[in-house]
């Protein structure tokens, strides 16, 4: 599904934030992305959602070399990826409804179907009665749930979440993890960046651990010791 080959990333003339990263995300897999603050989790995410080009190496997405694709093809690929940003990135001048509807509108879905979809999902995340409010008038957790809804509304093949439970209490947090599990069972590939030990410990998915620009993989279901290897998953 996604394949990184000797990928490196630096910002401007700074040092390499990610260096020589090689791994494969198989279709339908579920991964946690961990690492200390500033390790490059968000940066790796931005490479995954094709929001940035690596400074070296190649990224294969959905079977295609992204270095060789046209802009139009890249846009089409991106429509298969849902992203929950660390800082939400809701559009503050648009209601919760319009924020969530955005990916469907970009995909060109008709307005009636869009309305039904969006209302159902907002109900599910518990925001059915404030969907016409603007994000800045809502609580941190409510904003995060809008961000989640926006990421999953278009049924993405790859779902990326950057600290999706940082502002949620445990109950909603676990419910959200349940949603992710469910989406994963239905075939969505999922990568979640988190430092919540509670979440990490409760789910037996493989962990991508970033440290000093290197990616290590730890698979709790096959081995209980923290073996860090620099090989493909």
């Amino acid at each position, binding site marked *: 599904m996604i394949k990184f080959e000797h990928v490196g990333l630096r910002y401007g003339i700074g040092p390499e934030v990610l260096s020589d990263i090689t791994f494969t995300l198989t279709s339908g897999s579920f991964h946690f992305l961990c690492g200390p603050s500033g390790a490059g989790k968000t940066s790796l995410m931005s490479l995954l*959602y*094709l*929001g*940035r*080009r690596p400074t070296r190496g190649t990224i294969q997405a959905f079977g295609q070399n992204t270095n060789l694709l046209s*802009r*139009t093809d890249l*846009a*089409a*690929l*991106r*429509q*298969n*990826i849902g*992203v929950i940003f660390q800082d939400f*990135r809701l*559009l503050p*001048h*648009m*209601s919760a409804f*319009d924020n969530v509807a*955005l*990916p469907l509108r*970009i*995909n060109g879905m008709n307005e009636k179907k869009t309305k039904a979809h969006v209302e159902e999902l907002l109900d599910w995340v518990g925001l059915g009665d404030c969907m*016409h*409010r*603007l994000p*800045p*008038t809502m609580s941190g957790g409510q904003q995060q749930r809008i961000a989640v809804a926006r990421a999953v509304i278009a049924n993405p093949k790859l779902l990326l979440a950057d600290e999706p439970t940082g502002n949620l209490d445990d109950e909603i947090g676990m419910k959200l993890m349940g949603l992710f599990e469910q989406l994963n069972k239905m075939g969505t590939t999922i990568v979640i960046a988190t430092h919540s030990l509670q979440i990490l410990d409760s789910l037996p998915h493989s962990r991508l651990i970033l440290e000093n620009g290197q990616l290590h993989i730890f698979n709790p279901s096959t081995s209980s010791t923290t073996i860090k290897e620099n090989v493909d998953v």
Partner: protein
Amino acid sequence: MSRIFSISPKRGVGYDVPLHLKLGTEFLVLLISLMAFLSILAATGIVGLGHITKAWTSGLENSITIEIPAANVSEDEVQSLLQGLLKIEGVQKAQRLGQKDMEKLLSPWLGNVSSLWEDLPIPALITVTISERNAQITSKIAVTTRKISPNATVDAHDAWLSDLLKLANGLRLVSLGVFCLIMLVTATVVAGAVRSRMAIHHRELELLHIMGASDSYITNQFVRYILVQSLKGVSFGILIGLATLGLLSLISRNNPGTLPEMTLSGAEWSLFVAVPLLLAIMAVMAARITALRVLREMP
């Protein structure tokens, strides 16, 4: 707090990027209306000037006047000259101006004193109509005239006619230059506006981009915004243009003679719509090209 600064959430406006909330929109509209007004002025200038020169030169352009001084007028000479002229290829007509014509021509100078007519030494005037003005014909006419009637003078209207046409065409060229300049300035300003709005909203653009919005989806937002503002501006411009024209025609009606009369034909009235529309199209194209160019730098 938030009540004071409240911004109502209207989907109706329909921009994913909050362009409509930005300052500078009024200024953009103002500028475009000014540009529309000026471009209308320039265009009507080009057309109107054409009319005026045509009015001045009509009948003169394809005619040559030959004058035989009063002292030398002999009926035979005039007749043989007419014969000679008509033989030249390209001459359509050669006619002596009759008494009536002469009176008409001279009355502004001499008053309507037809009683004095017979006492005056009147020169003979021959009007030659040619099919097309070119150096060959005029020189042939001059040669023939000199042969038959050596005292006659040939007035080909050449000097002042060409001066006048040069002036008029110069002015039209200037108007055209101004017109093009207006288009260019408008396009530049619109491009600048789009560029800076894209810089201000780059977080939103980036988001749309990541969501898989194609370049044309994003570009359309800016194109629509510029289109709406342009149409607003252009409408104002047309109104100001019409008001100015009305004022001018009112002045020229009340003070006849002070302003050259300029009447536009039906088709030419469409300039008032076509020119501003062209301006709006320029603006939209500038917006589109700029937006696409900026987006192309995104990964």
